[in-house]
């Protein structure tokens, strides 16, 4: 069975699973600004479909249960998507960069 991580709408939108509605909407608006339908129709469709999928509670529930049935991911599948993401830095860490 394919790993549902690859079709996860949260992953497509670049968000953590279970990101709240506010974060999802903000991210959606940011992405469609970058990929408007007249300039990048395919990407727009992908973003829009993913956005709709994040909202439907049944789709979310089914995806959760499907992940229980899926084959366990390989280590590289678990690590690879994070290579292109940014690590997390706290505000305090950022502010500490200016210490004398």
């Amino acid at each position, binding site marked *: 069975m394919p790993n549902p991580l690859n079709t996860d709408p949260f992953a497509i939108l670049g968000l953590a699973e279970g990101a709240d509605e506010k974060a999802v909407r903000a991210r959606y608006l940011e992405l469609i600004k970058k990929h408007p339908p007249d300039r990048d129709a395919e990407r727009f469709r992908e973003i829009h479909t993913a956005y709709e999928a994040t909202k439907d509670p049944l789709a979310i529930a089914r995806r959760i*249960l499907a992940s229980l049935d899926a084959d366990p991911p390989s280590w590289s599948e678990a690590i690879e998507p994070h290579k292109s*993401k*940014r*690590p*997390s830095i706290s505000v305090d860490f*950022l*502010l500490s*960069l200016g210490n004398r």
Partner: protein
Amino acid sequence: MATRDQKRKEKKKKKRDQRKAESKKKETLSRPPKLRSVPSPHQELLTRQAPVAWDSEPVEDVAVFDEAVRDTLDSDSAKQVQSIREAFDLALAGRGDQSRLAVDEIPRSSPLSQWKVFLLGLIAWLKDEADEAERAWKRLDHSRRPSRIAISMWNARRSDSLTAKVPVADPQGEADRAAPWHTRVDDPLRQSAKRLHRVWYDRAAIRIAESGTKTRESIPDSLISPEKLEWIVEFAKKYRDFEPELVASLEQASLHRAAGQSYIDVFAIARDELPGPVHDPNNTLLNYVYELRYRDGIYSPRVSEAADCSLKQYLEVELPKNEALSKPVRNALASELHLREATEELNSGSGSPILGFLGPEYDKKLVRSHFKAATAAYPANRAAHQAYLRWIEDELEDRWTTAAQKKPLKAEMAKLMQAWSKGRPDDKEPRLWLLDYFIDAEKMDQAKPHVEWLANARVNDPKVRIARWRWTLLDAFRLCRRKAWLDQAAERLEESVPIWPAWLNQQWLPYLRASISLRAGDSGAYVKQRAAICDTADRKHLGVADSCMALAAAQLMRVPAADLKPLRAPVDAFVKNLSGVSKQELFDAAPFFWDLHRTDMLYPAYRMHGSKLASELNERLDADVQFVFKNIDDPQLHAAMYWISEHSIWTNSHDLRMPQYWTSELAHKTPAFAAVWANRGRKLYWLSSLDPDRDLTDFLRNSAPRQVDPFLSSWFAILADEMDERFAADDRRGGFFF
């Protein structure tokens, strides 16, 4: 001097020691290399993560990271500091536009405007827009913290600038003032840049994760060993702050790998040591899946106590309190879990492909409670309503179900349909059913809203389009209940004629008209009308067809039992002596029965002989396959097959066993053959026996627009969609849940 015995003993001991040493060597060689302890992030990262004010640092800058100092500012400045903190959070969360908005109100004249400029650069830097970042940052005051942060961030981009010996810039010097803004690097800034480079660009955590996970497992062929698990726990502790998503991903992968193998102790460690995902933080749901999957190390039959305990804990205690999920998601999850439980309990009983006749009867009470819970938890879950409906229909059709048991089942169905319609007001299926139900119960007021909805619905479904015709005809049947209403009944019957569906045969209409006479007690008129029918009808409509049409019409027109008796007799005689009925007679009656099915107009006596007649025709066709092949494009043959497919002649609830006259090859060429496959298949619980012909749904869908008959044109498309939905639901369950 050593004796011979002593020498022999020494030799034996030497050999023994040699053997021990060799076996220890083998053991050491076969043991995988011990995992190295997870390297810690650079020590400075752990100790220097906090901002520290220097002596002369402006109080506004200190207020950004020191709340006590913030409280000493005037209210305007304190508010601006608050906005700056919010803007930082938003920027680091990837919400650049909102971050910009948060600091929009800070005026240029404010001492805190430096932070506004810094944030604009930060937003650009986070999007890898270096030029944009520089445009903002080069305007900053070099003596203040925002500029210092910007300089370390800029220099962190390149590892060569981390070691370059650049003299500390003199702010007063001409040469220094002309130097590029990012070259004003002192030692503390160089150290800051190094720290940021290691975290942001170097991504040491990724390298360490890759090399750590690549080491061989100590248990051969396992997905994860205890040592690897221990390593993951250590890695998580050290890197969670900087790489929370990577750590979470590795933890989830570890959990799933542990759950994918039968080493119960390894799974127990993973379950207890690693945090679960958002929807299952205590791994209770995963534990339930695991208990079902691997208890006793074999695929075990359902109903493991421990598994049930875990599921109960999850559904009753943990899920309702899980505020990380929205309430609709929690309810949907509960609904889907109950639906799975109901389906799996059904599959565990007799008739299960695994247990077959060896299995126990499934627990009906449990199945019912799960179906009820599934539909109650999330009323908009159509799949739950449909599955529950299918189960009740099966129970009603079961020959062991007594009449006394059927009454509450019908009441249960009515409740289900009402709940379905309420939960999904735009679904036509429950409305179509409720229309009949309320008319039958003479609850016309409750039926009317459904008639109106169906009549106005823009749904390409023939059953919806004929709603008003059915309503009119059913009302005519209802009016036959009382002799005083028979005139109205006749009127209503005639009102149905102009709106009679074009694709539906009107051969039955004269029988309905005649039955009103019989209901009125005018048997003379009835006999004349029947004779007139026989005179005008061709040979096709005599025999079985004639008798059944007459019985059907009379029964629906509420003809009393005494007057029905002579109409039952010929039908009963046919059924008693089926071998004496010709194939042609059965074949000629088929279109009438198919019409009744596709308009949901079955008369009560049908259940006594309908499936027997269909079964007999099926056997005759099976015995004369050439007849089928000769009439392969004949709509009457198609009608016969559609009629047969309405009954459980080709199935138990799990397998589809098509007759000899049906082949996959034919079904891929002739849409009618694909349609009967789908019509029967959609009623199965498991679709595994349909898998080889799964592509028939596409063939059916593509054939739909080409059908001249408007009923078939809609029906083929509906069947295809329904089958695709059923296959998708089956795939989601992955066949076995355990």
